[in-house]
């Protein structure tokens, strides 16, 4: 492998990881946008999506069916479960304390994360779980770089979902109400916007994106574990901060960028230290540019 091919291979791997980070980061940033809360349980929602896919594939028994059908079952189950979970988390844990101080919300979010992590352990087991290989292991050599069918699926579905989200937020009535709620909740009430429902839908949308991320993660890496959600969730949160928390294109860019940084650091410096590099990015961003790369001026919120 020439140095250039190695570099290109790292880029391909980084974009795959980054696309998954981006899908999860969107949920952090959307929720932060409307309620100024870091939903630390979001990483667990992502993992719950992966587990839902595993169980759905086992129970439905998709052997013999075309792989597209199996994938549809996995994604469908993950999205339905995670959307319901996102709705329930908002309704039961966050809505009752929406008027309370940020510290209360912060503690609630951490508690919700621990609760879900343990629930996943009880339901899914404490050991690594094999993610069913529902997608054929096809691979191609393109200019010396190996690209798998799963990677193409990751890139394609991440791009499609981000485009759909961008359309939803910018062009639909619901999306406009979401952006309005993010800016001024009281003004929205006076306009007749059912703010509670908009916030619930935002949680459900973010959780659905994480669900797809969970399935893609399982397909790409083959095994899942109940505590994966914590680490991956923290990295996706880092990606959201890197792009500018509250900013949707920022979360997409931040995710891709963090995936690239991590995979280049793993390839050229040290694979054991890749998380250190990822979280180093978080520290650097918080120190020198807390509003992130695409950060918004905070002034017009006041």
């Amino acid at each position, binding site marked *: 492998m020439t140095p250039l091919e190695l570099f290109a291979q790292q880029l391909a791997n980084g974009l795959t990881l980054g696309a998954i980070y981006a899908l999860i980061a969107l949920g952090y940033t959307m929720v932060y946008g409307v309620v100024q809360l870091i939903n630390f349980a979001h990483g667990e929602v992502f993992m719950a999506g992966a587990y839902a896919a595993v169980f759905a594939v086992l129970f439905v028994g998709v052997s013999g069916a075309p792989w597209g059908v199996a994938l549809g079952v996995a994604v469908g189950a993950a999205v339905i479960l995670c959307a319901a979970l996102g709705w329930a988390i908002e309704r039961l844990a966050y809505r009752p304390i929406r008027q309370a101080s940020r510290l209360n919300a912060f503690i609630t979010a951490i508690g919700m994360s621990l609760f879900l992590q343990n629930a996943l352990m009880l339901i899914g087991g404490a050991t690594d779980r094999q993610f069913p290989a529902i997608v054929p292991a096809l691979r191609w050599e393109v200019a010396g770089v190996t690209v798998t069918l799963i990677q193409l699926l990751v890139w394609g579905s991440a791009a499609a979902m981000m485009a759909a989200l961008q359309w939803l937020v910018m062009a639909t009535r619901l999306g*406009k109400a979401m*952006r309005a709620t993010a*800016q001024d909740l*009281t*003004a929205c009430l*006076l*306009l*007749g*916007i059912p703010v509670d429902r908009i916030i619930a839908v935002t949680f459900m949308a973010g959780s659905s994106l994480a669900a797809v991320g969970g399935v893609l993660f399982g397909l790409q890496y083959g095994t899942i574990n109940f505590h994966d959600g914590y680490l991956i969730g923290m990295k996706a949160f880092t990606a959201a901060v890197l792009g500018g928390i509250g900013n949707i294109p920022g979360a997409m860019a931040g995710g891709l960028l963090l995936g690239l940084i991590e995979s280049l650091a793993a390839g050229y410096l040290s694979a054991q230290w890749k998380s250190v590099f990822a979280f180093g990015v978080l520290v650097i961003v918080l120190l020198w540019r807390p509003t992130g790369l695409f950060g918004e001026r905070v002034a*017009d919120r006041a």
Partner: protein
Amino acid sequence: MLRVESLVAGYGRITCLHEVSLEVGAGEIVALLGANGAGKSTTLKAISGLLPIRAGRVVFEGETLNSVPAHQMARRGISHVPEGRRILARLTVDENLELGAYARSDRKAIRQDRDRVFGLFPVLAERRRQLAGTLSGGEQQMLAMGRGLMARPRLLLLDEPSLGLAPRLVEAVFSTIRRINQEGVALLLVEQNAYQALRVAHRGYVLDAGRITLADTAEHLADNPSVRSAYLGG
């Protein structure tokens, strides 16, 4: 049309309104005057459901509104243009107006109402694709009022529409208030600028430390010595 009966409301342990009663008839402009902190904005917030009512009643078109959530008021015909305008700065003028009609689904009538708003405020039509935050203060006030009208209210609650505007714009705002009223919308108007408010209003109330101390026609209030000395500069 709107009847507020012995309304008590406040924030936390503080009670700001002590048995406030007032009425707005169909087609009327009613001014609510008073010094800073007298409870004028609080009264509007309690009517529109932003602030819980502790005692008393708010009755609109025969229905008690006490437990109706704020986001249902637009659907019931009450539009509240709040203090400080609260336009959505990072949305365009068009988007602000569109969201003003969020409670409605009659697309054709919404479009007609938008054209009506553009008729009242031609400058908004020129700036419709601009972000609302880039408008001048006067234009933002027009947008706030136009957005309030997009709900097609029968009663418009206006909180300090002239605050911080240049004198020429103040005139424009009050003549627009008169035009809105001529189209059949009743208005409850909270104003620091008592002189202008009493010129457009039919009737008025004076609120002092959370209590209604005077209620009369606008003409009589403008002639009342205590109103003249307190709010009209002698």
